[in-house]
């Protein structure tokens, strides 16, 4: 299960951001995961929840957006969504296609808790 390694990479990247940008508590981490990235969102959340406990991200949650697979036909230049794992152009049947999305494994945002202003008096 490589989702553990992936969770570990996510934590390292976020800890790094916290340090360099001097950020407060991270409430959530936004991820884009392509449908053919080879990463399973449930397994990733499971792995993340297990190893976050030993870090300052122990209360952080993942917000995962699954990106459907889409390609562009090299033959007829039309873009299309890849459905049911059929990787060929629905317009001209060519199998020579360029992937446009669906392979992502990206961190897209971090949600940071704002420190409450301490009121005087």
């Amino acid at each position: 299960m490589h989702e553990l390694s992936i969770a570990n990479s996510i934590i390292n990247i976020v800890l790094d951001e916290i340090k360099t940008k001097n950020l407060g508590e991270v409430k959530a981490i936004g991820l884009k995961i392509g449908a053919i990235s080879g990463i399973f969102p449930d397994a990733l959340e499971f792995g993340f929840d297990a190893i976050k406990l030993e870090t300052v991200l122990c209360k952080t949650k993942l917000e995962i957006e699954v990106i459907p697979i889409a390609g562009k036909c090299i033959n007829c230049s039309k873009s299309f969504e890849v459905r049911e794992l059929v990787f060929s152009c629905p317009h001209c049947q060519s199998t020579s296609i360029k992937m446009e999305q669906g392979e992502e494994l990206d961190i897209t945002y971090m949600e940071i808790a704002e420190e409450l202003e301490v009121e005087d008096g």
Partner: protein
Amino acid sequence: MTTTIKLEKKVLSENDKLAAEIRDELTKNKVAALNFVSSPGSGKTSLLEKTLQALRSEMKIGMVAGDVQTENDAKRLISAGGEKIKPIVTGGSCHLDAKMVSKVLPEIDSSDLDLFIIENVGNLVCPSSYDLGEDMKVVLISVTEGDDKPLKYPSMFRRSSVMVINKIDMLELCDFSLETVKKNALQINGDLKIFELSCRTGEGLEEWYDWLKELVKGKREA
């Protein structure tokens, strides 16, 4: 109250950076590089043993053999006549990453190689995410595994450039259709180059060797 900070960062950017360094080194030295992936037991080491025996007199071949626990595969490759063989024991990890490869690469010295092959850990899911600096992934599937595997593990077949169907000597013993597996694989990746062979009988191996020779020649002249 919360604020949102935008970030566009690939989770595996560290790995990809190291992989790019490996690729640069291999390209500079004109070494063709393959990453062998499959389920456990499809015959990766068997095909590499055959390849060493057949081609080591005409090209310099380096290999790393990734394994979760043992160094058995590296030992087999050395017995098959390999001179530049290094094991990578992952200690539990289900895949190789670029860091593990870049650590052993200096011991193999790619400046003196024509062909570099990485045998990944037997696993059809996890290794697909990790670029190791190879020119292409070669996915093996054996006839005992079932002809629906490309549909069950699409990310691996999509990211591979070559599919080797191994153990065709066992076709009669299994409900495995060559036609179906090829159809399924090409549905996922129409550009796949396909070989059908048996490491046991030797059938189909000549085509594989010829292709490797062309690959090495192409890289040398690039």
